[in-house]
């Protein structure tokens, strides 16, 4: 058990979203696309050189920039 952000997770690892450290706009946008506190999330892949991180929530795959991924805190 521990808290990590999305960029620190391994591909294939899953966990529960516990915090989104972003402003109102970004939190709302992520929420409407399916990422919010309490949701189960699986990391699908992360590209090298601080590339985007792809995750799966429910049946949706979402891809986001490295910076945004670092703001999503997951309990694994």
């Amino acid at each position, binding site marked *: 058990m521990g808290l990590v952000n999305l960029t620190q997770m391994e591909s294939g690892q899953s966990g529960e979203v516990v915090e989104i450290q972003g402003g109102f706009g970004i939190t709302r946008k992520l929420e409407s696309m399916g990422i919010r506190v309490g949701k189960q999330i699986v990391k699908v892949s992360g590209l090298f050189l601080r590339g985007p991180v792809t995750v799966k929530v429910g*049946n949706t*795959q979402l891809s986001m920039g490295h910076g945004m991924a670092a703001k999503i805190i997951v309990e694994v």
Partner: protein
Amino acid sequence: MKKIVLMGNPNVGKSVVFSRLTGTHVIASNYPGTTVEFTEGFAKINEEQVTIIDAPGTYTLDPTCKAEEVAVEMLKDVDLVINIIDATNLERNLYLTLELMEKDIPVIVALNMWDETKHKGITINVEKLEEFLRVPVIPVVAVTGQGINRLVGRIPEATPPGVRKHKRGERWKDIGRIIDETQKLEHRHHTFLERVEDASIHALTGIPIAAVVIFIAFKIIRFIGEGLIGYVFEPLFENIYAPVVMKLSEVLGSKGFLHDIIIGKLIEGEIDFVQSFGLLTTGLFVPIGMVLPYVFSFFLVLSFLEDVGYLPRLAILLDNLMHRLGLHGYAIIPMILGLGCNVPGIMATRILESRREKFIAITIMSIGVPCAALQAMIFGLVGKQGGLYVAMVFGTLFIVWLALGLILNLSVKGFSPSLLIEVPPYRLPSWRALLKKFWMRLFYFIKEALPIVLLGVIIINTLYILKVFDVIADLTAPVVTGLLGLPKEAVIAILIGFLRKDVAVGMLAPFNLTAQQLVVSSTVLAMFFPCIATFTIMFKELGSKDTIKATAIMVFVSLLVGTVLNFILRIVL
């Protein structure tokens, strides 16, 4: 007339439902953000003529980009909302549904992609969902048309749900309850397509897959395009059409004003479809014999890649690179559309969130992304000198695209947000839908291109006869000859590029340019000034100030690059 609007999250199939209801075809693809503008169509629903509006997708009624603003705007004065939901993503889609239900407009829900729920191990209790939402809910499969009649039949049952305004947290709480009660998930193993999905965005496998996809796409485009030219269009023009036009030329007396406009100049007593420059010769041969085959194969391959769902994956792989240009990965989609035609490419920049991104994307696209028509002419004309020269033209354009993006990223104020996109599953394309989209694009090309090419031919011939070109050529000679190393008359081709670039490249043919001059002139032509269709859409999307800024950049950069290219080639070749 009653107005019905289709609303839903991006990539849930609104455009497919729209085509089903109205018979009006709109472009539908497998990636979020295909529709950026609304389309109106008409349908007879339960004996009543109604207007149906296809709106861009949106996740919420608080828009975050231009395309979503258009969607929310559509909600004003409508009589009914058909809320299209992706049944495989019920939870996320319901947020918009709940927001719509607070609007005091009758709502009916279409649960689209119903067939996919089965393979994905999702069971939805539709009766219960209806009970919760208190609006009609109908499972449909829009691509096959299944359920569409039932959807239409139940429209009269829709009434305003009369739900009070909720807070965000309350809506999510309600959704949690609805999902618990109506949806069951069963765990399924990864299918083959899902494995390929994962492989195409993993660091080690994704880039090789992208390289293979792009290589194959390019090969197929050239194979079909050149095959059509060599085996169908050229023989048709040379063997069947040419003798007819030759007869007409004799009837017209082989020379004179009318002859020059209709048939053009005879080259050694014969018609030359590239050089004659009459309405019925070059005017038809350039758009139909040289450009159409490439446009045909380009759109066929593009439509396939779109419908499979590959493009968002490419966006993820290229996110890093695009950030250096002040954009994010998704901006690659407008660029790829721009390779077909810059007009839909520029429209598609509406999926980008900030003004700065739109400015950078539109500027580098109109300077460095040659449309299919222009590419076809460059292949056709420069290709005769050898593949190396074609590579020089496209290589230069790519370097300019990249370098200008890097510079604009450092110099344009504002911010560029991070990538955040939904990645659609791979789907086997529906051939019917794919071919329809393909025909629409082809038809659009013929409708838009042919009249302008013909107009261009008339203008060129008239100005030639009036000797206007001589004045311009003398005036611009210091730049065109001195800096670019071209014959002074070549300025005319560059100017005609404002009408259409394909016909402008065609104008270079009679000058008997050297390979080096061809490379310089077609590169400058590609970059110099947007064609009138692109210019109009730029103006609409950017406004006057930024359009002037963008075009000033284009003129300056193209002259600079043309000069540098001219001197480098002189030393090297």
